[in-house]
């Protein structure tokens, strides 16, 4: 790493680059160290990173080199990742990744061309800064168009991010400094989200878990509930799902691939029983080909908010059987012809039982 132009203060600014984790490794830092009083500032800073993400809007982790030393800044990042992982909350995960990425964006915008390129190359980007003028506009950077496409999926609903509205020559998209920083924000966000792994909880000492629970309690109102918890609050009774919907619902929750008809069936069913669209979007989040924009579009389409305005109803039982989506009938199934009827009957009888 000798020829890298990135200094320790750069690493503190962009703690997601490989140099940062190498630095942490060299310090021989372990998660158990956090129990040691000397490491308290790191734990505090890690917690602050998460609190920043939850309490600012739009979310952004603060950058304050006068308050935090470079060491604290660098080590607190992987610690915060572990803490967020342990919280196992999809909303906090997204929000935290976004907040860190937005911080990086604000800092990158102010960097020299060389530094921006250096950080971009950490993500494998094929980028250079020819500083060419096209028409009246000077474009500092040229980025491989595949690297560009990988990072605009959340942006391309805005006309000016569409590839067709960009100067593209011999496989490169010509971009301003501001645009490159914005695309790096997308890349960083995805990278950080991927680092957050709920399994990490088992690695954390009990004492820290306790502290984390306090954090959870303190910011409960800021952490939106995960889909399963909130179902009941909007009046959705998952116990009343027919077997076909239950199977699809569980597949979605665990991120298994669901064929198109299945997605359509599940989505139209959930809309019909009054589930909030955001919660339906969250439900599909684990799928390997998840794309928020596409998912939202499909949901709105099925809900009749787009296109022809038709509000779609889930298919009847015999259609579901044709498509192989009926996992086998229970007693109630034999008496009905439509999954929605099943749900209505079952919710009614569950309510009666509850009384």
């Amino acid at each position, binding site marked *: 790493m000798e020829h890298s132009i990135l200094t320790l203060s750069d690493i503190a600014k962009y703690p997601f680059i490989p140099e940062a984790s190498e630095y942490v490794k060299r310090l021989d830092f372990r998660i158990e160290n956090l129990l040691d009083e000397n490491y308290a500032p790191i734990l505090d800073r890690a917690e602050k990173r998460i609190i920043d993400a939850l309490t600012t809007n739009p979310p952004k982790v603060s950058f304050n080199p006068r308050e935090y030393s470079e060491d604290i800044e660098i080590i607190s990042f992987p610690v915060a990742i572990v803490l967020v992982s342990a919280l196992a909350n999809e909303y906090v995960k997204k929000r935290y990744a976004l907040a860190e990425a937005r911080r990086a964006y604000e800092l990158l915008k102010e960097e020299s061309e060389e530094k921006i390129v250096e950080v971009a190359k950490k993500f494998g980007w094929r980028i250079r800064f020819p500083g060419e003028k*096209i028409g009246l506009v000077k474009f500092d950077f040229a980025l491989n168009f*595949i690297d560009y496409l990988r990072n605009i999926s959340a942006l391309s609903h805005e006309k000016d991010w569409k590839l067709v509205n960009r*100067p593209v020559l011999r496989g490169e998209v010509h971009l301003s400094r501001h645009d490159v920083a914005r695309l790096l924000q997308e890349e960083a966000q995805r990278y950080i989200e991927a680092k957050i792994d709920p399994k990490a909880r088992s690695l954390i000492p009990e004492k820290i878990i306790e502290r984390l629970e306090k954090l959870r309690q303190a910011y409960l109102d800021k952490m939106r509930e995960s889909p399963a918890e909130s179902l009941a609050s909007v009046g959705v009774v998952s116990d009343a799902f027919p077997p076909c919907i239950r199977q699809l619902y569980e597949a979605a929750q665990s991120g298994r691939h669901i064929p198109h008809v299945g997605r359509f069936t599940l989505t139209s069913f959930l809309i019909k029983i009054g589930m909030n669209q955001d919660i339906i979007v969250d439900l599909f989040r684990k799928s390997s080909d998840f794309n928020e924009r*596409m998912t939202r579009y499909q949901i709105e389409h099925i809900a009749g908010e787009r296109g022809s305005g038709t509000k779609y109803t889930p298919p009847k039982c015999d259609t579901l059987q044709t498509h192989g989506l009926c996992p086998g009938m229970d007693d109630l199934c034999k008496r009905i012809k439509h999954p929605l009827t099943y749900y209505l009957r079952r919710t009614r009888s569950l309510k009666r039982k509850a009384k």
Partner: protein
Amino acid sequence: MGMDNQAFIYRMFSKFYNENIDRIETPKSIENREFGFTIFKENVMIRHKGFMRAEDLKEFIRKTVPSNVYYSTAYYIMPEAKMDEKGWLGSDLFFDIDADHMPTECNKIHDTWTCEKCGLTSNGVTPKKCPRCGSESFDEKTWPCEKCLEAAKVETIKLIDMLTGDLGFSISEIKCSFSGHRGYHIQVESEEILKLDSTARKEIVDYVTGTGIDAIFHGLELINYGEARILVGPNLDDFGWRGRAARGTYEFLLKATAEDLKRLGLKSRVINEILANKNEILESWKTSGPWNMVRGLGLNGWRKIIQRGISLQSAKIDTVVTVDIHRLIRLPGTLHGKTGLLKVSFPASEIEAFDPLKEAVAFKGGEAKIYVEEAPKFRLGDEDFGPFKKQTVSLPLSAAIFLLCKDAGEVIDSNV
């Protein structure tokens, strides 16, 4: 009735595959591809087939003699598994350019459609709804005519230009082929694009079709010039869509009639001024462009004109095909069941001179006597045939099979 058409075509396809099995082009990483076939008798698609080696695939084709052979643009861990269990590894970037999707000079008068419900028959492009009964299902008979194929070639050339000049693929990475019917296929087998998801492929589709494009992102803008505000715009020799927008606009204005301009919603005074100064406007591209030459024509008016120019420059592809990462496509070196012509590949750099109706002829030598119900004039190789109507003719085997595959006649006798 003489011989059974299908039995005859089957026999000829079988003979062809026996003698020409090595014309079949084995796709890269054959073990990761899904194959699909249609069989003469059942006319159903057999999917989810996989082959470990080229010899196995060829042996299968020789034994089964399918009416059509397809393979996946995708690579899978287990190509024979069910769709959601295959394990997608990536897909080639694929484009389908078919005359069905473009307006042509011949207006497709050679094509016929028959309403499946009420039996109404007519020529030209198939309507969305039957004008007589409103039904939406039709039996179509389409023909690969010179003009249609030429139109498809023009679109393919535009596409190749964008793939190389703009997106930076080398011409050798671009596999080009004639589909065996009415269009061309373009396939990019590059490591780089394998993993692109449908959303990213959609962006590429929008790029080559000019979808969502706006001239204000390609140089059209009002700027301060001393005390005045003047309009600037793209130049003919700019790169990418910028130059394409300028060239398309030039091309549009060159031929534009008052009617064309009216359709853009321009005021008649503006239209008259454009038409009266057409030569000066076209001339002005050599210098600073026409942006400030027409009084009353400002940024928004030009924006609409450029939009027309852009549609002339866009490549008309079948947008659904490129976005579908699980698509099955025809295997090069195999016969098209609807024409008896070969899907043939050729170097993209040679497309200008490529003659599909010559290169795709599979059956050489031999003759057959057939009864033709109805067929428009067509060419195969260097020979013209037809038009035919309710007559018995002796034809070279390739032309006879072509008509029989099109279901335009009945085989009577053959020397093969």
